[in-house]
């Protein structure tokens, strides 16, 4: 089936099997391997991307469902060599340890801050319920998002 979609501002069109997940499409067809597949059961959030601006788990979407949509992956966050404020804050606050969950954390953080530019610590923690960090580095992830909110609001 033919799909056409925009990923990180670039237009793509491919023939795909309906059973191809969006996560596999991004990783294996577009070679955008920043989107990770962790649990593959929509629990861990490592595969989070934004679809028309909303954070979604790309392992639980079919590529065909994204036909005509606008997608942003972790690769689309930085502006060339200039990191996105959320990425910058993760770097400054030691918001990543092994880094596996980080792309999903950053993409979910972008959804949290889009809907709530000044979240409380509790609201950030609530917003991250769908993202697991097996290093258990949540404390600095929350700090990173708090600082990112300040940077974006400046």
């Amino acid at each position, binding site marked *: *089936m033919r799909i056409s979609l925009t990923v990180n501002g670039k237009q793509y069109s491919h023939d795909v*099997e*309906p*059973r191809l*997940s969006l996560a596999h499409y991004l990783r294996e067809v577009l070679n955008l391997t920043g989107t990770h597949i962790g649990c*593959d*059961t*929509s*629990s861990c*959030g490592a595969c*989070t991307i934004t*679809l028309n601006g*909303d*954070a*979604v*788990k790309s392992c*639980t*979407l*079919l590529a*065909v*469902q994204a*036909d005509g949509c606008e997608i942003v992956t972790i690769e689309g966050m930085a502006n060339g060599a200039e990191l996105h404020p959320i990425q910058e804050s993760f770097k400054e606050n030691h918001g990543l340890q092994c880094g596996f969950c980080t792309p999903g954390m950053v993409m*979910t953080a972008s*959804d*949290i801050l889009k809907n709530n530019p000044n979240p409380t610590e509790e609201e950030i923690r609530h*917003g991250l*319920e*769908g*993202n697991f960090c097996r290093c258990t580095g949540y404390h600095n992830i929350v700090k990173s998002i708090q600082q990112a909110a300040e940077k974006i609001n400046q």
Partner: protein
Amino acid sequence: MIPAKFDYIKVSSINEAVDLVDKHGFDAKILAGGHSLIPAMKLRLNTPSILIDISGIEGMNEIKESGDEIIVGANCTHKQIMSSDLVKNQLNILAQTAATIGDVQVRNRGTIGGSLAHSDPSADYPATVLACDAKIEVTSKNGSRTIDAEDFFQGIFTTALEDDEIITAVRFPKVKDGNYQKFYQSASRFAVVGVAVVKDGNGVKVGITGVADTPYRAKAVEKAYDGSTDAATHAVDGVDVMSDHFADSEYRAHLAKVMVKKALA
């Protein structure tokens, strides 16, 4: 995990959808948000040969006020429901329920129609749909009908929906005094126990999910209600309480009483 092969059709009208369901029968599955169906297909617990994507049907993702009712289109996402001013002002118990489902990403995709049709025994909406006495609108090639909440849920993953019927909307009465109390399964965010209470004058309506294989109206609680929380002791009267690795039946029965007490308070 990769699902078995299937064909995919995205329809733009309900008529197109019911024609396809009629044609393909049991081989077809309706896809809305896909957050119950796609995981089941990846585990090959479900192997439909055709998916009919109804997410693009115009008008099915709207929330409207009609007289004393709030009509929620079947394709409304949990996010849309929890964020709707109309729902928050006229039917806050539903906004409160939607906000407890899954996580940000799941709420951005999952729909009320999909959740009700799937009818997971630990899903949140059934408790609230029951306590509100909501009505479920369904359509098939043979026409449309309305199913009362109490008749809709029939067993584990089993509803009153016929094979060729699609949920198009859920009609809720406006509710001033209601609340949903949930004890979360900490990893999945499903309800170990979820209790919805709607108070109306002197009476109370109580819907319970997560406790039995079918969500139910706790009629014994409703009957014993005297304005205090004492009636909560009747939460599982006559109910076959589920047991699983999250909560055995004794613990779950106790939890149900505690959660009913909280919801009645």
